[in-house]
């Protein structure tokens, strides 16, 4: 992929995403829940944090015409860190001594890692990896979950039987083992992780939508629409889909946090991202030995854990705030 096509793809994707969000935010169906959401402090704080992460992550996906030392094009994030020098080994935050060569360095806010890379930059790149995987995974599991869930709930009978069989079969394999098995067969890599998480992650959404669609089809408006001779496709797209879309959104937000945690665990186990890709899980893995070094190298694990913790916490709180906004009686 040339830098130009990558940039075009990234911008096109952001554009489509913003368009979809605007469409939903402005739909009258969502007006009341969203005004309820706008009164939730935790929701706003969480949303702000998530947007900051999104901006940082995107900045590492947009490429510039300048080249790095190894010839690959610099991303906007790399450009921002252009003047931060690379060290030869660990250095603690705000200190100026290199452990190995005992020479003076410039200051790194979060220190440097074993290879002398700036930890702040690595953490930000980790955000980019996590959000890329989260996005790709969502692009796989949400369509599967929505299509299977709604068609099972709407058409019922044998289609429902098949879908139920499919998800009970996949759900009966312990999740982490299935993920690991897929990753071992497919090999490490960002697309591979997204695929593995995507084809195992649709079950919850599918089950939820199947139940909700069943409930909707029993409502009177659905029967009325059918009595008026509306076609199935039009009932699904004009009546059912808009009525379950908020569930998809809440599932997307909460699922995103699950994907990020799963990516970190897979990378930690050693079947996640390939070596050389910045990932919070890999950073935590590296820190296993670092805590027993003398002096202790604590900044690496702390940065990765902190970054991951804040993002996952924000996503969870955002999802909770949205759920409360759409269902005020929810506990």
């Amino acid at each position, binding site marked *: 992929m040339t830098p130009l096509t990558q940039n075009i793809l990234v911008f096109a994707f952001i554009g489509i995403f913003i368009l979809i969000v605007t469409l939903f935010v402005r739909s009258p169906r969502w007006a009341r829940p969203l005004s309820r959401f706008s009164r939730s402090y935790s929701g706003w704080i969480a949303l702000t944090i998530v947007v900051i992460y999104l901006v940082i992550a995107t900045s590492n996906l947009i490429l510039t015409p300048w080249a790095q030392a190894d010839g690959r094009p610099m991303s906007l994030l790399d450009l921002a860190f252009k003047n931060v020098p690379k060290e030869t080994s660990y250095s603690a935050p705000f200190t100026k001594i290199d452990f190995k060569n005992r020479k003076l360095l410039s200051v790194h806010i979060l220190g440097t890692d074993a290879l002398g890379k700036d930890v702040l930059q690595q953490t930000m790149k980790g955000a980019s990896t996590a959000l890329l995987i989260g996005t790709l995974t969502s692009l796989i599991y949400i369509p599967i979950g929505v299509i299977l869930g709604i068609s099972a709930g709407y058409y019922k009978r044998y289609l429902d039987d098949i879908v139920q069989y499919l998800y009970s079969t996949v759900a009966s*394999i312990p999740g982490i083992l299935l993920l690991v098995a897929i990753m*071992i067969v497919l090999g490490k890599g960002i697309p591979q992780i997204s695929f593995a998480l995507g084809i195992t992650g649709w079950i919850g959404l599918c089950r939820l939508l199947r139940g909700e669609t069943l409930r909707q089809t029993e409502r009177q408006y659905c029967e009325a629409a059918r009595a008026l001779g509306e076609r199935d496709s039009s009932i699904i797209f004009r009546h059912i889909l808009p009525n379950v879309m908020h569930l998809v959104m809440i599932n997307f937000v909460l699922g995103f946090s699950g994907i990020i945690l799963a990516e*970190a665990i897979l990378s930690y186990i050693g079947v996640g991202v390939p070596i050389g890709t910045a990932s919070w899980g890999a950073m935590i893995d590296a820190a296993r030995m670092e805590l027993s070094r003398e002096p202790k190298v604590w900044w690496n694990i702390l940065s990765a854990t902190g970054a991951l913790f804040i993002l996952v916490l924000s996503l*969870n709180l955002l999802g909770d705030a949205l759920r409360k906004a759409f269902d005020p009686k929810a506990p």
Partner: protein
Amino acid sequence: MIPIILGVMVITFVLFYMLQKPETMARHILGPKASPQAVENWIKLRGYDKPVFINTQTGHHWYDSQFCTYIVSLATFNLGVSDTTGQPVIDRFKEGAIPSLTITVPAFFLGLALALSISLFFVYVRETSIDFAGTIFAVALMSIPVMVYVIFGQWLLAVHFKYFPAYGFSLDGAGIVRFLALPVMILIFGGLGSDIRMYRAIFLEEIRNDYVRTAYAKGLSSGAVLLCHVLKNGMINIITLTVSALPMLILGSLVLETFFGIPGLGNMALDAIHTSDFAVIRATTYIGTLLYLFGLLLTDLCYAWVDPRIKLQ
């Protein structure tokens, strides 16, 4: 139940036999320097050269194919030998189950009791600032990946404060407590956040029911209403969530066991992952599924036990 087991067999077969070239597997195990002859022998020995689904060659039975052999061997619990050590997989399962159980069973019951009491407390003080802070705390607990609990717990309590040994395993008397306290504690903490959140939601859903109002109208205190009436009704929902944890009880924790040097099944599985031991991973996945399905059966039994509205047929 049977169709699901068959489905799982098909999924794992596709995963391990069809998406994976036998040559790659052989190279993984034998090393890149192995002779082509050795690779061929390795493949032949394990039957990877047979037709995939149906054997159409003359002089062979139609069922002499990889798929049929695979199904038959799984159904008869013939799990084969480890690709790396040659040890029968079933033996390793027998060895590893006990160490895993000694950690997961106490962690499961203590964790359940702890999560139940904390969530009941949050429900007792519902819609106060304590409840609000508690909910955020629970979400925070579940936003930390399990390996951070492991790494940080070991470093803080074993390395820094030296309360517990950092590493090792023993099954005799005092050793159990000495070595197991820390891993058990960490395992409890790792699951506490999501459990509290889920149970709290279940109990809050439950207190909206009419029978709770009746209990209050009788003159019971809030504590008595929660502990007698809401707890027992809530348990019906909670059982579904907890019994499906059965596979993880026996299979142990992938991340935790290696870290503390516990010779359990989680440790075995992680070893297999690192050495690409497909036979062991295959067997672990299959046994995990069987345990899960067994857990489902157990759930139904527990339902009938707790909920008088359900009678066993």
